[in-house]
């Protein structure tokens, strides 16, 4: 099958594995952060770690949009559905994420809230058209990949005069997160964690291009390789990172050339810029408040902004005690270092978002990796 099986070819994988093994310097370790949960899952699902030399380590990054959404915002969404009696449309990944008191959208739905799982913003618009007497809120989450569809939905709603449709906007931005991680004490030279380079976001970069990472690569002297989500993409990108590290380079390279360009999709960027604007600061689960790291709906589209139409209450949102998701998201802990992992916290009974999401690191370890001894901590 074109574009699937070619990137999962065993002979090519073995060839890449032997080149990586030849080129790594045995006396040093390599720590590469795969920013995206999509990479984490490719690594585990295809057993990529099995094909790596023992001194190449993957550090799992915060690139799981469901995981980095702070509990407070999820609590707000549940409140919208329950208190304001709206139809809340959400991507499926959010459904089982535990909020404060382990309340989730799926539990609120069981208690009678009208929560619909959608595949795209267009489905949410259809629901709004079909239910003119109900308020319909689209729970928008995700990195830059999912921002253009949100912008399109808002523009379509405006063009149609769809007065019962609003968006609860939680979109976040990747370049700001990379800078924030590298500024944190965790990754300081004497800090507990180490990173020598990044497997950069693939789908995100299809939208924003590879150039937004150039400043961070230069400033922090860390190589970034934009990497596709297929296992061969990941392996080739590791080889490219190993070469940069060995040669003392810190550049942004693009492995995912079949999709990503340096400039990205300018039409999508223009659309997003027309509808959404930077927030001064946004709370990330695990990372805390990050400057200029998220988007909000521009004032000219305020009537489609759920945060302006509905007043959510002040609340004391809390994570499950002892859940180490925040440390996992910062790359300072492996899921298996968390004492809840696999004991009380499993995908059937999740304590934190990282065990729920199809991009969460804990879910990857649990679903694909339990047979292995835990990798040595990064």
């Amino acid at each position: 099958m074109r574009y699937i099986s070619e990137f999962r070819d065993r002979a090519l994988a073995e060839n890449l594995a032997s080149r990586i093994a030849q080129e790594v310097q045995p006396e040093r370790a390599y720590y590469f952060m795969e920013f995206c949960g999509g990479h984490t899952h490719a690594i585990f699902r295809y057993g990529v770690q099995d094909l790596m030399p023992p001194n190449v380590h993957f550090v799992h990054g915060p690139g799981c949009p469901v995981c980095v959404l702070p509990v407070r915002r999820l609590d707000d969404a549940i409140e919208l559905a329950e208190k304001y009696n709206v139809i809340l449309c959400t991507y499926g990944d959010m459904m089982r994420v535990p909020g404060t008191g382990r309340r989730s959208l799926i539990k609120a739905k069981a208690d009678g809230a009208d929560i619909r799982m959608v595949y795209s913003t267009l489905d949410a618009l259809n629901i709004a058209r079909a239910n003119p007497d109900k308020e319909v809120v689209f729970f928008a989450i995700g990195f830059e990949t999912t921002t253009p569809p949100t912008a399109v939905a808002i523009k379509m709603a405006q063009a149609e005069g769809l007065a019962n449709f609003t968006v609860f906007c939680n979109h976040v931005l990747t370049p700001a997160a990379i800078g924030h991680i590298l500024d944190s004490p965790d990754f300081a030279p004497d800090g507990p964690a180490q990173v020598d380079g990044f497997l950069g976001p693939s789908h995100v970069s299809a939208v924003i291009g590879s150039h937004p990472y150039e400043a961070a690569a230069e400033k922090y002297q860390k190589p970034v390789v934009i990497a596709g989500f297929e296992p061969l993409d990941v392996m080739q990108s590791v080889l490219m990172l190993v070469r940069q590290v060995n040669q003392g380079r810190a550049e942004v390279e693009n492995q995912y050339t079949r999709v990503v360009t340096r400039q990205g999709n300018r039409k999508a960027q223009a659309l997003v810029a027309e509808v959404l604007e930077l927030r001064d600061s946004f709370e990330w689960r695990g990372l805390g408040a990050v400057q200029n790291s998220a988007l909000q709906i521009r004032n000219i589209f305020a009537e489609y902004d759920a945060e302006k139409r509905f007043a959510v209450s002040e609340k004391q949102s809390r994570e499950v005690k002892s859940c180490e998701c925040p440390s996992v998201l910062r790359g300072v802990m492996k899921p298996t270092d968390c004492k809840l992992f696999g004991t009380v916290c499993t995908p059937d009974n999740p304590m934190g978002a990282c065990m729920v999401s199809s991009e969460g690191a804990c879910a990857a370890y649990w679903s694909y990796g339990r047979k292995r001894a835990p990798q040595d901590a990064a």
Partner: protein
Amino acid sequence: MTDRINMTHGGGGRAMAELIRDVFHKHLGNAMLGRGDDAGLFAVQKGRMVMSTDGHVISPLFFPGGDIGSLSVHGTVNDLAMMGAKPLYLTAGFIMEEGFPLIDLERIVWSMAQAARAADVQVISGDTKVVERGKGDGVFITTTGVGVIPDGVDISVANVAAGQSIIVSGTMGDHGVAILSKRENLAFETEICSDSAALHGLVADMVAAVPEIAMLRDPTRGGLSATLNEIASATGVGMVLDEGQIPVSPDVAAACELLGLDPLNTANEGKLIAICPRDQADTLIATMRAHPLGQKAAVIGATIADPAHLVQMETTFGGTRIVDWLAGEQLPRIC
């Protein structure tokens, strides 16, 4: 006759009698059903009998490759077949929602009758109830079946041991993807059809050729991964699969790729898993491939001794991973 189900159709009066006559007996009618007794009567066969029940609540009711009517026959027939039995009789309970179009009901009952005829089973007793609008989802059908196990056939999870071969009868995930493609909020263009089918004919050929088959099971909800984990936990063996040997049609693989689903977690309604002694696997595969419902049969792995009873898989990529139960329902991803 009105054109929609209303509360009088469940009221026990003339409307209900007419519905039973004009829809149910018209299509499902046989000598036993026609007698009008309170229960179906049948002679007890020599040997061991098996009995199984299955409720069907599928949405949408009509999907590519079948509908709730045919599915309600295949589901129960297959449960009996997985014991090595020849299915004989079914009963059917219908819970219908007020307002359900009679034309759809008749289409479902007709399809049920076709499926029963093809499977050579008779529906010998039935029940209809009507619930108020909003308290059902169109129609729910519960079928119960009885069958007889031929002498010398002993198929049970208790026979599973380390060192046996694991076989599937064909491609994985067709039914689940076909259903998803027609869900109201997820509609996408595909030619994928449900594999819904009665498997007892295939099973009869299999047990005739290889009476030593340890166990059979149909990987319905939760797909191959849930069923194999169920067997592993029940028997205490582990399993090692070879991903490259698991048949998945290109269309299903592509749809799963787009939707973020795994064909191994996706439901089947016309496939079976067989576990048999390793030295019988070739014979069994040859027998299965000679049957129309087993043309893509393949040995996908083996049982091993493993105190942790994990299901592991060598990936086509050359690594190894475990194949886990699905947590909750498969949910689409966002990125």
